[in-house]
């Protein structure tokens, strides 16, 4: 190995890897470490331990125990995100899987699938506008439907009232995100051989049994992916809340990412906004670790 070869080797290493390493360090790693340190400092840069965390966690915008769970919203961002997950996740998983099975041989299935997938192509700020539109008192199709079936007491602009704003956002976000689980389940279904279903049919299994004993178990890897990606999306939800309600009225539909933004760029409180950023990161890391573990167990 001559010195010329060694020089050339290092020249190659520098050219292939340095642009990425420099950009990642400057614009991702350093800012993330800085946010972590901001979360344990006060505004003068003095170390305060976990004081910011306890401040944030007892603030009404994050967890309002005077109202949660016995009175209506606002309950604070943590309960709002949690409720989002509790409603959105099971609906997205079950709708995606059921529709993928239903649409397997239906006339016009590719059209229906394309329309459902539109929600994934639409920017989420536009998605927020769509949610406000469908729940609008006069122009919205939901209220027209409610009037049509005689449920006049529920007719109103859902996004404008504290009792219904969060629910409207969650239901709207189901419409926008189902395309993701549908596409993944559809491609997962196409890998299950038809012979399996035929054999089960010969053995006398009815369609419901086939769904529960063949489809669901064989789609488990897809379900793990759908659940984890959807959880990450729900934890970071921001754009559609910003456009549809701005977190209102009176904080009734605020979420963690929106509180982080408001504290940082409206209230100019970098330290408390850093606490929320660290909280969101901790939660997404848990999901990330769970996903990589689940994948590894599956390979064994």
């Amino acid at each position: 190995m001559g010195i010329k070869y060694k020089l050339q080797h290092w020249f190659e290493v520098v050219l292939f890897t340095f642009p990425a390493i420099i950009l990642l360090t400057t614009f991702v790693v350093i800012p993330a470490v800085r946010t972590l340190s901001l979360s344990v400092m006060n505004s003068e840069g003095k170390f305060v331990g976990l004081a910011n965390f306890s401040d944030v966690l007892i603030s009404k915008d994050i967890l309002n125990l005077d109202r949660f769970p016995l009175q209506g919203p606002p309950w604070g961002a943590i309960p709002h995100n949690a409720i989002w997950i509790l409603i959105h996740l099971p609906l997205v998983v079950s709708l995606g899987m059921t529709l993928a099975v239903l649409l397997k041989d239906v006339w016009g299935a590719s059209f229906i699938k394309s329309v459902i997938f539109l929600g994934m192509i639409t920017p989420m700020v536009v998605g927020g506008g769509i949610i406000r539109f469908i729940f609008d008192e006069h122009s919205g199709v939901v209220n027209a439907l409610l009037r049509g079936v005689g449920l006049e007491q529920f007719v109103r602009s859902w996004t404008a009232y504290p009792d219904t704003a969060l629910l409207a956002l969650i239901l709207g976000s189901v419409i926008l995100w189902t395309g993701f689980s549908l596409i993944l389940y559809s491609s997962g279904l196409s890998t299950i051989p038809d012979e399996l279903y035929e054999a089960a049919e010969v053995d006398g299994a009815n369609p419901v049994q086939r769904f529960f004993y063949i489809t669901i178990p064989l789609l488990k890897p897809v379900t793990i992916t759908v659940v984890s990606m959807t959880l990450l999306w729900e934890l970071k939800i921001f754009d559609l809340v910003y456009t549809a309600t701005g977190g209102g009225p009176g904080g009734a539909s605020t979420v963690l990412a929106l509180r982080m933004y408001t504290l940082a760029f409206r209230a100019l409180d970098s330290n408390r906004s850093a606490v929320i950023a660290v909280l969101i990161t901790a939660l997404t890391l848990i999901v990330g670790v769970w996903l990589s573990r689940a994948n590894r167990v599956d390979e064994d």
Partner: protein
Amino acid sequence: MKTKNKRKKITAGRLAIHIIAWLAGLIWIVPFLGILMASIRPQRELIHGWWNLSEVNISFENFANAWNHPTAPIGQGIRNSIIVTIPATILPIIIATLFAYGLLRLRFPGRKLFLIIVVLLLSIPQQMVAVPLFQILNNFGILNKFSGLIITHTAWGLIWITIFMRNYLMTLPVEYEEAASLDGANRFQSFFKIILPLSLPGLASVAALQFTWVWNDFFMALITLYEPNLLVATQRIPLLKGQYSVDWGVLSAASLLVTAIPLLVFVFLQKYYIKGLIGWTIK
């Protein structure tokens, strides 16, 4: 043959499945149809709901009004989004593919560590970098400039594209490169002449997804661009609604204009888009 005949037969069960599937489909069809109808009908017809068809006049005035909106012209926003999105798609693809190749094929100390760090960075949300990023861009003098947002998206895109392309390059056989190096080609020649052409399907998937994500991004744009005439398309959508009343016609037209570009990308690169999404999420 036997199963085929069975499939074609119209039974009560199959009819029921069709009805359920199409009724469920309506939940998605109706909202998007509503946006389309609201965008092509004048405001006075929308007062009674876009589904009211007693008088239908199709006009494109909503599109013109959105394009030239007095406070948030969508036309200028789309122009700005194009200026940001094209380099923010090309740059990270080049840099990340070089990085992925280097991590895979070149021997140097710390390459395993770099890979682990990149994988860890995948789980970090944008909120975790927002405030310091704002300060760093300000120190470099690129805050509130297109270049600041482009470099932000480039760095952010590097993370997932590096992992994606590393997985993709692993599937390529080494033999071609070995043959090339026997013929006297150096690393750069074999990268540009052999690796890149072989990676085109993977690169098409990455390009389709990165373009759509950058175009649809709102958060990064919100913290890096604030001068009114610099705002990208997505930033203008929330500005179109008034405090108390919303002109649904203009908002719908603007929504369609902003969504049209990623929709075109999806239509033309559908195969790569879906492959990329599935390859990316299910490893």
